[in-house]
């Protein structure tokens, strides 16, 4: 029986090998080139056996992986590897007082020491990743809590970056003349850009309040792209396609920092903002507003019937999400010292959305993990040169097929009635 099953698998895999040879034949075997308006084709026959072997092997692995995944699904979900590890760790922490103190300290230590032990390149990579963590946490409020699909998120990111960039561009030279260091503007821009982005979020969400689901997704996409085109085409104010360059790095008590020191400094600023974001987002999640947002995600009509103001809720969702994007934008401008509209394309919005979904929509540790994976993997894939993006796509599909709830799925907060009769929230993340 068992042997029969394997034979059947192999037969199926061979068949699929033939199918893939057929499917990929024109693109992989025939190479087209056009000279003087006439197309000609050269054949690369050696690719056929390669495709066949790869397809058969891949198909077998795929089949077994799917079966394994199904069996895993049939088992108790509380028994899966991820949950067991989580439970194991929390049990270990509960029992072992020392570990409870030492482990977080180790983590904090590692995070603090990272820029000092790694080079400037790795520090910069990590800063970009952390900026994306802030972005993703912000988008997680919109998508994960509110359930509103936003494909124009990069626009708010751009609002933040451009607030700092323009503020510097238009007042910097004047400040320098008066004798004030313009890098002060970074600290003013940080909250200010957040507020400007928030304002934009509210303004843009006004016309879309009636829309649902995919209509909302497409209209946010439209807003994002329109905003980028406006940035690109209003050259006198925003610098047009060339953008704004030589944006100052943040002020550090009047000390002129070397680029390396500045990178370390920005790393610490970003890291503390990430911590602040996590703190705020967690507070939101457990608040009355957070619960209302989740109710809206689950069912808008039922939610409205329960007396929750949908309009107010949607505005809050967009505003909160936009705020963090604005803050992240300032950090981006300060880190790269150069911004142009190409940094805020639709692709950027899609990347952040992918980070949220692959990490686990709604789950804070998940979103952080997802962002780090998505932003750091391509850096380490660089050795694979031109195959990088191909493998990246494949990896994404595999993750989403096998962990469709994300890497660290969200565990709902459970509220239990305690024996004394008083309700108290018993939170699991």
């Amino acid at each position, binding site marked *: 029986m068992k042997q029969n099953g394997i034979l059947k698998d192999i037969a199926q895999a061979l068949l699929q090998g033939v199918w893939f040879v057929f499917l990929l034949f*024109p693109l992989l075997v025939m190479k087209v080139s056009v000279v003087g308006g006439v197309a000609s084709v050269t054949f690369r026959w050696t690719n056929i056996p390669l495709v066949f072997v790869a397809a058969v092997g891949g198909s077998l692995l795929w089949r077994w992986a799917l079966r394994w995944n199904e069996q895993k699904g049939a088992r108790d979900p509380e028994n899966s590897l991820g949950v067991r590890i989580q439970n194991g760790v929390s049990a270990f922490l509960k029992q072992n007082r020392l570990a409870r103190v030492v482990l977080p300290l180790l983590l904090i230590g590692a995070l603090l020491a990272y820029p000092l032990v790694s080079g400037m390149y790795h520090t910069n990579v990590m800063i970009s990743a952390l900026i994306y963590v802030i972005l993703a946490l912000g988008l997680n409020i919109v998508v994960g809590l509110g359930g509103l699909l936003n494909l124009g998120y990069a626009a708010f990111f751009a609002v933040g970056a451009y607030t700092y960039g323009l503020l510097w561009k238009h007042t910097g030279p004047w400040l320098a003349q008066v004798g004030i260091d313009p890098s002060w503007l970074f600290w003013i821009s940080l909250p200010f850009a957040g507020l400007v982005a928030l304002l934009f979020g509210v303004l843009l969400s006004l016309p879309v309040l009636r829309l649902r689901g995919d209509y909302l997704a497409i209209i946010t996409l439209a807003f994002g792209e329109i905003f980028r085109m406006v940035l690109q085409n209003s050259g006198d104010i925003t610098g047009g396609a060339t953008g704004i360059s030589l944006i100052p790095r943040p002020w550090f008590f009047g000390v002129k920092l070397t680029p390396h020191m500045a990178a370390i400094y920005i790393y610490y600023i970003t890291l503390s903002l990430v911590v602040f974001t996590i703190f705020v987002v967690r507070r939101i999640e457990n608040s009355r507003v957070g619960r209302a947002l989740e109710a809206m995600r689950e069912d808008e009509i039922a939610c409205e019937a329960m007396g929750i103001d949908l309009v107010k809720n949607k505005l809050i969702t967009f505003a909160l999400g936009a705020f963090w994007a604005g803050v992240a934008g300032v950090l981006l401008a300060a880190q790269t010292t150069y911004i142009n509209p190409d940094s805020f394309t639709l692709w950027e919005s899609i990347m952040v959305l992918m980070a949220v979904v692959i990490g686990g929509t709604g789950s804070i540790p998940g979103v952080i993990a997802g962002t780090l994976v998505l932003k750091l993997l391509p850096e380490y894939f660089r050795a694979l040169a031109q195959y990088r993006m191909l493998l990246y796509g494949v990896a994404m*599909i595999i993750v989403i097929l096998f962990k469709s709830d994300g890497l660290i799925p969200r565990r709902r907060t459970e509220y239990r009635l305690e024996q004394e009769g008083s309700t108290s929230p018993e939170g699991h993340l």
Partner: protein
Amino acid sequence: MEYFLKLLLSGTTKGSIYALIALGYTMVYGVIQLINFAHGEIYMIGGFTALIFGGFLYSMGLPAPVVLLISVILAIVYAASFGFTIERIAYRPLRNKPRLSALISAIGISIVLQNFVLLAQTEKYLAYPSYLPDLPFLQPVKQYINATQFIILIVTALIMVFLTMLIKYTRIGKAMRATAQDKDMAQLVGVNINQVISITFIIGSSLAAIGGVLICSYMGQINYYIGFIAGIKAFVAAVLGGIGSIPGAVLGSFVLGWTESFGTGYLSSDYEDAFALLILVLILTVKPEGLLGKNQKQKV
């Protein structure tokens, strides 16, 4: 007036092109409520396949009309096969999972296909030889409309009629409508929904392939990346008309084509894409379910 006519016709051509891609988008969406981000890539692959086979057959010395016919048929076959395979690998396992997961999977497929074509073929823009015949009877009006535009218009009209008939009057069309309305109920009354979904993908991808060949002939070039932008435009057109509705997709595409054409012609050419998106925002603000979308009652 002449300028106006010219813009109108170029807008109509653009609209028909968008319609060919938007139809596939809207059909897939109608049946499984998935924004198939990889649809644009299927269209790109259709264009490439026709270019490859066309080049090969032409170098064998076949006459242009025969080359055109065979390469279009092969492009359709391959695009349909790609569509079928993608649905089996990347969408079917996620059918009962959160909707965002399938969207991410579609984006993943889109990245994979783009980079696959980039690696297997080329990263450069290739000139696209046109095998479309020159129509002599268009000679008197050739400053308004050329042969390629004429063929695009005719083909779109034919496909539109064919699709409407297919969905209204055939058995499979009925099965598609049933699946779109309620998958579980359709299954209960004996519709094989897996088969219906596969067929939807095959039809949608075939249309994309035809679109690919026509558009590349019209634009005169192809590249691995053309699918992304065309896909977004088609998605916008489909939503504009009311996603899931076939006449809606066509109407939306024409509105989009005209807006772009008149916007660039009379206002400013810097904002070509912005006009299209602006009209989308305006229409959705007034009519949130799109031009011809059904305003479904929401229930708890």
